[in-house]
């Protein structure tokens, strides 16, 4: 951390987040969306670690929350993929814009 | 013991030599490079002679000699095999995803080699004494699934995909009990660093191994089963079951790419055994002999056990395989953590009686419970 300015890391994580968000908003494949969400979560994790290292908080705090985030990510993926599989089995598609029964 | 630190002395000697001529950073770099080179050399060599060992042992088990033509006792057989692999044609299927097909075997070897970093080969002979050593091992070995996927997917072959998926399912399943089986050891030694774990098993002629405790024994059994499954060796070799899937995920590989897969597999077998030794069998601890002899001795003993299993056991059925992991090993490993906790909370003699009883009881309870979950017997009617 002494090596790199905090701003650079933050910009990096911002870009990572932006890329992930773009993927989330534009990928048609639901698995693709899930993957992109993982990117966003990772960007947030990086920030958590970095902030914990540079502010007056104890350095464990950031990592603990990062661990929580990782656990939640695992949950998201597990449930999300289960839904995808169920969807694929019943509708033979995993494109988000082809699953639009819930509209007017 | 004069032979014990022989390798360390050698390295120190060399580094001292460097320090006289080069700046500090070069010495550090050299230190790293030496370790790396040793590992890079040792890995393939070990792999080569493991294959020979396996073929010889299997031969003995099956009442034949095994390779004995090339070199004395067939000692040069692995070299011959290597040469054959190098000069073989590299076939890539037409529809394959070429880049990934190429990348897969390469990526496979990397984690297998990386694991060597934290293996304590002897007293002070750990390449990098990471303070998260054992976690590092678990993490790195969990990467192994990705290259298998890559290889299977890129081959565009039904057998490959099936094998890959089986491999992934199996490795994820067995990783859970394996990790949990390690936990009591960490509780006992209160560290994640591999070298420290080994040190904590010293004392009493260096025979204070964790396997000599009830939870250690149970943990070792669980770990060892999982280890065999992790490196896809019989009786857990579903992903590459010849009779069902030809060769599983590496069906479409040949030549040097195939050799890499092969190498990764054998190195995994070795490192998993080495970690088992580190965790449960006291690592390099032992009386009289140099530490590294103890270490390699124990490790090869475990490898031999693996080979012995291969020669003896039948292959699992898929559902049994998963059931074994989730219904037997996983709960047992969870209970083992509890038992280990009891061990540390109760005074010594009571702890022995209590935990030993609990281990035996829980083992048989789960054996019994799993019996009831076995699907009803099928009756096969022979065709007229």
């Amino acid at each position, binding site marked *: 951390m*002494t*090596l*790199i300015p*905090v*701003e*650079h890391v*933050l*910009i990096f994580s911002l*870009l990572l987040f932006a*890329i*992930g*968000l*773009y993927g989330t*908003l*534009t*990928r*048609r494949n639901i*698995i693709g969306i899930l993957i992109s969400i*993982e*990117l966003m979560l990772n960007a947030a*994790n*990086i920030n958590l*670690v970095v902030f914990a*290292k*540079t*502010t*007056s908080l104890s*350095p*464990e705090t950031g*990592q*603990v929350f990062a661990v*929580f985030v*990782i656990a*939640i*990510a*695992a*949950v998201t*993926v597990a*449930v999300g*993929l*289960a*839904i*995808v*599989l169920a969807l694929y089995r019943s509708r033979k598609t*995993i494109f988000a814009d082809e699953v639009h029964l819930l509209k007017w | 013991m004069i032979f014990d630190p022989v390798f360390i002395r050698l390295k120190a000697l060399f580094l001292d030599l460097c320090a006289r001529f080069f700046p500090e950073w070069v010495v550090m770099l050299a230190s790293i490079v030496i370790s790396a080179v040793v590992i890079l050399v040792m890995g393939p060599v070990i792999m080569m002679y493991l294959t020979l060992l396996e073929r010889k042992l299997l031969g003995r088990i099956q009442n034949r000699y095994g390779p004995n033509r090339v070199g004395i006792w067939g000692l040069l057989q692995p070299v011959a095999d290597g040469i054959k692999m190098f000069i073989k044609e590299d076939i890539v299927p037409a529809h394959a995803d070429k880049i990934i097909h190429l990348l897969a075997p390469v990526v496979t070897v990397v984690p297998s080699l990386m694991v060597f970093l934290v293996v304590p080969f002897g007293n002070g002979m750990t390449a990098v004494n*990471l*303070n*998260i050593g054992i*976690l*590092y091992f*678990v*993490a790195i070995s*969990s990467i192994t699934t*990705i290259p298998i*996927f890559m290889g299977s997917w890129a081959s*565009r072959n039904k057998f490959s995909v099936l094998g890959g*998926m089986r491999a992934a*399912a199996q*490795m994820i399943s067995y990783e859970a009990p394996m990790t949990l089986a390690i936990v009591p050891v960490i509780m006992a030694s209160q560290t*994640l660093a591999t070298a420290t774990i080994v040190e904590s098993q010293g004392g009493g002629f260096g025979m204070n191994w964790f396997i000599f405790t009830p939870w250690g024994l149970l943990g070792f059994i669980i770990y060892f089963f999982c280890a065999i499954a992790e490196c896809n060796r019989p009786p857990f070799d579903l992903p590459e079951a010849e009779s069902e899937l030809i060769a599983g995920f590496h069906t479409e590989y040949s030549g040097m790419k195939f050799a890499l897969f092969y190498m990764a597999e054998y190195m995994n077998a070795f490192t998993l055994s080495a970690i088992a030794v580190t965790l449960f069998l006291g690592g390099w601890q032992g009386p009289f002999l140099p530490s590294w002899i103890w270490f390699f001795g124990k490790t090869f003993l475990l490898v031999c056990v693996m080979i012995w299993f291969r020669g003896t056991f039948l292959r699992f059925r898929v559902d049994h395989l998963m059931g074994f992991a989730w219904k037997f090993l996983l709960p047992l490993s969870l209970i083992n953590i509890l038992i280990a906790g009891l061990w540390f909370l109760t005074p010594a003699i009571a702890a022995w009686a209590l935990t030993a009883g609990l281990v035996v009881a829980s083992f048989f309870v789960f054996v019994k419970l799993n019996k009831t979950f076995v699907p009803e017997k099928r009756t096969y009617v022979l065709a007229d």
Partner: protein
Amino acid sequence: MEILTLAAKIGAYALMTGVLLFALGVVALRNLFHSALCLAAALIGIAGLYLFFRADFLAAVQILLYVGAVMTVIIFAIMLTEHLSGKTTIQHNRQSLPAFLGIAALVTVIAKVILQTPWPVTQKALGAHTSVEGIGTALMTVYVFPFEVISVVLIAALIGAVIIAKRENPS
């Protein structure tokens, strides 16, 4: 030592660049399998960054959970849902442009904020390895409640995923 420091610095920036490139690959590649592999690579890169930040434990967890478990499951799902030949259909939907514009605006705004903020740099823990004991203690004392909640959530998700993904009985 400066050389080593410099090397590390360069390595860090290279890692960041690599991660960003792989991330772009994740969203841009048409082949989902490739993007998944890109993601794995990006994640490993991030684990490397964690190592750089002296967060060893987190790095190990990142690899163990993300690469070892999450990615495997994702790839598993990809292999189950894609046909073997792979689809050549359009992989991005029609709102790419508004999304891109919005995100550009977001990046601009936040980058501005980042650059304008005077970030405090405390010297206390810099460079020190975060001890595994410290994390364990934090998990078991201060954060024990969220820790337990996470456990429950994991169990619930596990069961839920199994039930959702299970094929309905024909009966």
